């Protein structure tokens, strides 16, 4: 044991009031040369930690409970390789990172769900791909991604900033003299002051304790000099760097756009072979993208009339029941489409008659009284004389409802006594 040649300072000679008084270095460099003065230690009156070196893991593990029982400060061990059971011996509690990740991951899932629910189901509900606005299945992949995002960011940043205390760039133990031995074949136990106050570290007591448990060499590592980050030089360099990056990026982008041909990255979607309205196409022989429907095509909801002349149409039967709902619909459509020419009473006296000097049919006349339902229907579909077709304006049901309503108007203008309520 070499520490007998390099005694630790006598507690009696050190000033009582300043336990953190610089203590002479007591470590023995691995090459065996003893240096009289440790320059990392000189002129500092604040110790950051005290390192005790041990020859093997058994010595280290035996020392830990003894030093720990004295409660001198926070214990940490530095070893050249992982030593099983070290965490338990040092009493290092389980990292809170797992709980943090769990909480933030759950928060990520809730955030993603709430965002999507509010956007898709409340604020802007659109049916996409035939799915209801509120479709939880579609939310799950994004919930999964955001959960992973929150969890990994929490794990990474929490580890760096909260647990490893970034921007604490270099731990003082890295600049200790013992470090080269720790990375080779020595096992170090360090005692650090608990909490923020470094003054609480009683270096004499710690040194004594480490010596008692058989540390072959003891070193007091001083507190690192605080390095200010936001100096004027740093800020100027940062601003200069940002400006340079902007200028270089802007100039290269300008040049790239101006002098180089456009290279679209992916155009499969844009340039796929498909039929476009109003565009030519090599698919059909006549070169048109738009084609007439094949002969005999019937559009959905537009059954053909089945009659080729008004006389044939006379046989058609009004399929709608003559009830209040139908007559209301007929009245509405008649007022919208027919009354402007034929008049509200179907007497051919509409508001447009005078303006255009036209002579629309008086549906109250005997000729039209004799028309069958089918014949009136035919005229609505095909038009007659100056009257245009209303096939595009009125659906089949609406036309038949109008026919019912015209019948009602005819009846109303030619009411008989027995029509009155008894």
């Amino acid at each position, binding site marked *: 044991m070499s520490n007998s040649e390099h005694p630790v300072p006598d507690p009696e000679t050190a000033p009582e009031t300043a336990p953190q008084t610089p203590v002479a270095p007591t470590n023995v460099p691995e090459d065996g040369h003893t240096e009289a003065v440790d320059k990392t230690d000189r002129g500092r009156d604040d110790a950051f930690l005290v390192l005790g070196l041990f020859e093997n893991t058994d010595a280290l593990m035996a020392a830990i409970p003894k030093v720990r029982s004295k409660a001198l400060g926070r214990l940490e061990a530095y070893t050249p390789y992982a030593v099983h059971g070290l965490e338990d011996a040092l009493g290092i509690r389980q990292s809170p990172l797992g709980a943090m990740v769990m909480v933030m991951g759950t928060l990520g899932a809730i955030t993603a769900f709430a965002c999507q629910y509010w956007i898709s189901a409340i604020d802007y509900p659109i049916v996409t791909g035939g799915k209801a606005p509120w479709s939880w*299945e579609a939310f*799950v992949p994004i919930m999964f991604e955001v959960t992973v995002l929150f969890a990994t960011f929490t794990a990474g940043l929490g580890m760096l900033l909260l647990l490893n205390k970034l921007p604490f760039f270099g731990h003082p133990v890295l600049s200790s003299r013992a470090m080269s031995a720790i990375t080779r074949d020595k096992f170090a136990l360090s005692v650090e002051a608990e909490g923020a106050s470094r003054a609480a570290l009683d270096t004499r007591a710690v040194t004594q304790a480490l010596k008692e448990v058989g540390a072959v060499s003891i070193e007091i590592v001083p507190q690192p000099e605080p390095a200010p980050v936001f100096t004027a030089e740093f800020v100027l360099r940062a601003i200069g760097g940002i400006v340079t990056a902007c200028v270089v990026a802007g100039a290269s982008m300008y040049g790239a756009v101006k002098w180089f041909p456009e290279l679209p990255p992916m155009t499969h979607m844009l340039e796929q072979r498909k039929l476009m309205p109003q565009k030519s196409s090599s698919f059909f022989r006549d070169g048109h993208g738009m084609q007439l429907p094949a002969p005999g095509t019937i559009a959905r909801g537009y059954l053909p009339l089945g009659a080729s002349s008004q006389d044939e149409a006379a046989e058609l039967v009004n399929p709608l029941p003559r009830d209040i709902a139908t007559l209301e619909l007929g009245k509405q459509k008649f007022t919208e489409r027919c009354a402007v020419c034929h008049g509200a009473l179907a007497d051919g006296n509409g508001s447009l008659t005078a303006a255009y000097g036209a002579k629309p049919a008086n549906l109250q006349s005997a000729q039209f009284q004799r028309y069958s339902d089918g014949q009136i229907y035919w005229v609505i579909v095909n038009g007659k004389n100056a009257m245009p077709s209303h096939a595009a304006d009125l659906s089949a049901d609406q036309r038949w409802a109008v026919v019912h309503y015209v019948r009602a108007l005819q009846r109303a203008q030619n009411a008989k006594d027995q029509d009155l309520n008894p």
Partner: protein
Amino acid sequence: MTDAKAKSPVILLGMTGLGALGVALSFIRNSHERFWVNWIYWFVVLFTLGIGSLFIVALQHLVSARWSIPIRRVPERLATLLLPVIPVALIGLMAVRVLYPGAQPEALHDHVLAGKVWWLDLPMFSLRTVLVLVAATLSLGVLVRGSLRQDKTKDPGFTVRARKFAPGFMLVFAFLVTIVAFDWISGLTPDWYSDIFGVYLFAGSFLSALAASSLSVVLLKRGNRLVEVKPDHLYNLGGFTFAFTVFWSYIGFAQYMLMWYANLPEEVHWYHQRLHGGWHTVTVVLAVLHFIVPFFALSTRDAKSDPKRLAVVALIMLGAHLLDLYWLIFPVLGEGPSFTWTELSFALFFLGVGLLWLRQAFTWGDDMPVGDPFLREGLEFRL
């Protein structure tokens, strides 16, 4: 599956006998569909448990894992369930003409199936099943019989041979699981198919084997066997189980979501059936038992090495695997979920036979592979 050393086999024998009576009665009384659906269900249960355990063994050899050597004998013994599976599968082939539309004469008139009849019909179906059984038995012989022999010979050569055999087994294993998934489960509804279905069954198979292994290790430890197995070993088993609950859910949900999105009639009817009526409840319960409960129960570090909690989660996991296969197979009957005396008898019979087999299997060889040259390293495993 259980220690069962202290227990008398009388209960198991009685259970099996009662079950056998019910199974026989069911063959006479029930429709053939119901009987054979129950039969193939139990074939798939036993097969997935056995092949999943063999997968664990092969996986440890493949990556030369040391931590798992002290507990490797447990999945090795569980894998021997592949032997009683052989008669179950061969008898189950009688179900092919009854249950599988691809093997029925009507398939020739179905324009979707007509071109596949040569593959789906009984001869090719039987050929594939026999190949699966032969490959599984041979692999079992190499990995498990070799390991049991090593107990006495202490021949380190086995460890090398097993490591060389494992990569090839992984390829064969992929085919075995996929064939069983496609033929025996997905073949019940041949117009429905999912490319990922084999992976889905693999996830369930591996999870059930992990759960059975964890449960057996905990029970053996309670019976003062496997004393040297530390919480660190349990932690790894728990970690595997934890990770693969997520894998199973990922595959299961991915399969569902793609079909839900595409909404193709030939695909979506399979899920439509399982998301309406009583099956909807089963689906929800399955998601809770197979994912949510084990995921949160095992999420903390201490939970993974706590034997009591691990045993409870393993039991839930095994139940969830049974429910998963029930959910896959039984809707083919076209009824809601039901559990009658038929299902009870089948459960009693096959659980009884399986437990009796395992009771015997857990006496084969030492509790640890004492011949493995790396056993000491495995015992010294620390997290």
